């Protein structure tokens, strides 16, 4: 057993996802805690072009097969299992995402290993690796010693900075033969369906600039749009904004609209009434801007300011250098 930490890289539409690098960052921490080496597992039809980006790992274990060109859960499970076995992994990290979650349990079961899901950090204590995970919608923190001798974990999106999983190094690539049985998988990848042209799904956005009555005029939506563009996010609104036709219904956050769980929720001129706050059950960072210091938004937000929204938006865009 080499006692390696394996991170299974995630490729969507021919590109390594940001979450892969978050998982590599987590892998680095776990490898450090256990004094192990870190391997990245890459599955694909031709991995060479992408493997070079995985320098945060000490090596890349690649399984190449035409059936792995796009994510085929059944084929990927077979391939991931063979790679992880070949590595003699101590722990195997999957992204807690659509593709990672299809594989984690299958690999764990075949290795006879437990799964620790929803991890957000790893640390070392007394020569052991410890994990920190979340459950119950983030309302409970779970900590423990990483089970042995082998363990599978999933790492939550965005819990570590992707930069910590990137490196300029080019890692050595070791190819592992595709396992027997690939030809008899019953699952076929049929194709990608592009997101519909037209409006965004705000519940899938990480950064939201949300406007309420406090922006006063329809013209001020443009300020919000500029700020959102500067932040790499989109503009959403509370019901009165949508009712007045200042934003389309697809942008409604609230009881009658969508529920969002963004990384950043900038609530601009929103009072924070229950009907709206129902639409934001969780946000990693919520900042409320409202001239009324007693507005209920400040009970939900992490930070707040009572300055005028109409002045704050362009000031913030300027401070971001845009």
């Amino acid at each position, binding site marked *: 057993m080499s006692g390696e930490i394996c991170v299974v890289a995630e490729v969507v539409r021919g590109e390594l996802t940001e979450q892969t690098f978050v998982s590599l960052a987590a892998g680095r921490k776990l490898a450090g805690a256990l004094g192990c080496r870190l391997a990245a597992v890459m599955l694909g039809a031709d991995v060479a072009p992408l493997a070079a980006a995985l320098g945060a790992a000490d090596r890349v274990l690649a399984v190449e097969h035409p059936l792995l060109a796009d994510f085929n859960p059944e084929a990927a499970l077979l391939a991931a299992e063979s790679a992880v076995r070949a590595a003699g992994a101590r722990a195997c990290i999957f992204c807690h995402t659509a593709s990672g979650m299809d594989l984690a349990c299958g690999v764990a079961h075949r290795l006879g290993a437990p799964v620790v899901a929803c991890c957000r950090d790893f640390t070392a204590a007394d020569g052991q690796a410890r994990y920190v995970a979340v459950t119950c919608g983030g309302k409970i923190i779970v900590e423990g010693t990483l089970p042995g001798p082998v363990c599978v974990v999933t790492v939550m999106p965005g819990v570590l900075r992707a930069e910590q999983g990137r490196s300029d190094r080019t890692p050595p690539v070791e190819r592992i033969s595709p396992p027997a049985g690939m030809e008899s998988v019953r699952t076929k990848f049929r194709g990608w369906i592009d997101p519909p042209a037209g409006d965004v799904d705000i519940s899938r956005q990480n950064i939201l600039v949300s406007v309420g*009555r406090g922006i006063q005029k329809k013209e001020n939506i443009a300020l919000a749009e500029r700020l959102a563009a500067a932040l790499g996010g989109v503009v959403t609104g509370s019901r009165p904004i949508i009712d007045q036709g200042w934003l389309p219904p697809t942008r409604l956050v609230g009881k009658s609209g969508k529920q969002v769980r963004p990384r950043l929720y900038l609530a601009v001129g929103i009072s924070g*009434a229950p009907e709206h706050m129902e639409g934001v059950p969780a946000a990693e960072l919520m900042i409320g801007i409202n001239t009324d210091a007693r507005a209920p938004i400040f009970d939900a937000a992490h930070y707040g300011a009572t300055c005028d929204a109409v002045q704050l938006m362009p000031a913030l865009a300027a401070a971001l250098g845009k």
Partner: protein
Amino acid sequence: MSEATSYEFLEKVIAATPDGAYIRKCLQCGTCSGICPYGFAMDYPPRALIAALRADDFHGVLESDTIWLCVSCFACASVCPMKIPLTRGLLATLKAEMLVGGSIPAELQTALSNSRRYGNALGESPRKRADWARDFTVPVPVMAGRKDPVEMLWFVGDYGSYHPRVQLVSKALAKLMHAMGMSFGILGPEENSDGDTQAFAGEWGLFELLARKNIRAMSRYQFREVITGDPHAFNAMKHEYPRLGFDKRVRHYAQVFAERIDILRPLLKNPLPLRVTYHDPCYLGRANDNGVYEEPRLLLRAIPGVELVEMDHNRVMSICCGGGGGGMWLDGFTWEKAHARTTEWRVREAVECGAQVLAVACPYETPRFEDAVKSTGNEGRLIVRDIAELLAESAFGREDVQ
């Protein structure tokens, strides 16, 4: 979709109320459709609905979803020359049929599912129903914590318990009742939604479930009567709870306070020099001929400095706030269909009659009218207050009721 025929549905309508058979006498005069606040946006306002049934086109009716615009305001029933029980008999029965067929706007479904699971439409934890009263400046006893009888069982309601704006009204009421020397208690976590609005949204099974829970909880305690600031609770307990075994008197606080005006008036020390207009809640006045119109006005006139002015549509002609019949949980749907809000008409009427204060007496109304004050651009020109809040301000001063 429901598979009932026009005839089968008509039979259900007739069976729904004691005077249900009056529907056969419909003159097709159209007064009902004319007075309906959202009739203009309905595919089948009441007159057209009856015509469709007579033409055996129930299927066409089922294909429309505009019945959900009906806010069960009883305007149609109150003007019908043949006294057809339109609101309870026809419209609520159609909603029930739509629900059976699985046709329900998503917003409403959430409110009904919440009512089933949590006993309140807002989806809040039932354990926290009395949190608003904890450590309040006057004691608000929860019945489960005391063995001795009280004079009044105060039914607070969903919004009075959980909605931050309406909790202020609950606090005002608590202070007033305490100052008037009334002995009262609340059910707290044992209280469920009164079920009235869920009933008029078509969910009569849910209503019965909630009502039975409330009746069972109340049966554990000794009290003389029920007092409430919620016209929907008042209406349900007065008209529907008795057949489920409820045998106590229920009154709106306006009735009780008016009866005790001689105790209340001396407490109203601070003058409020304001021009106030009073909005008659549908379920306190017009619905089921509940007829409580004058007591709220009596209370307002008792406040020194208050000048009471009337809107054009007052008493039995009051314009609904749009919260009944499920409307409280259908604002997105209603706006999409009608592009109009009854609350905005009402607020404009209040401003036009020269009022500075729009006084209300129902928990739906404070948040709904305050929204409309903002959306009609009348912030700073009109404020919305429950009568209890005005009485409390006169009695205790403009202090933070938090």
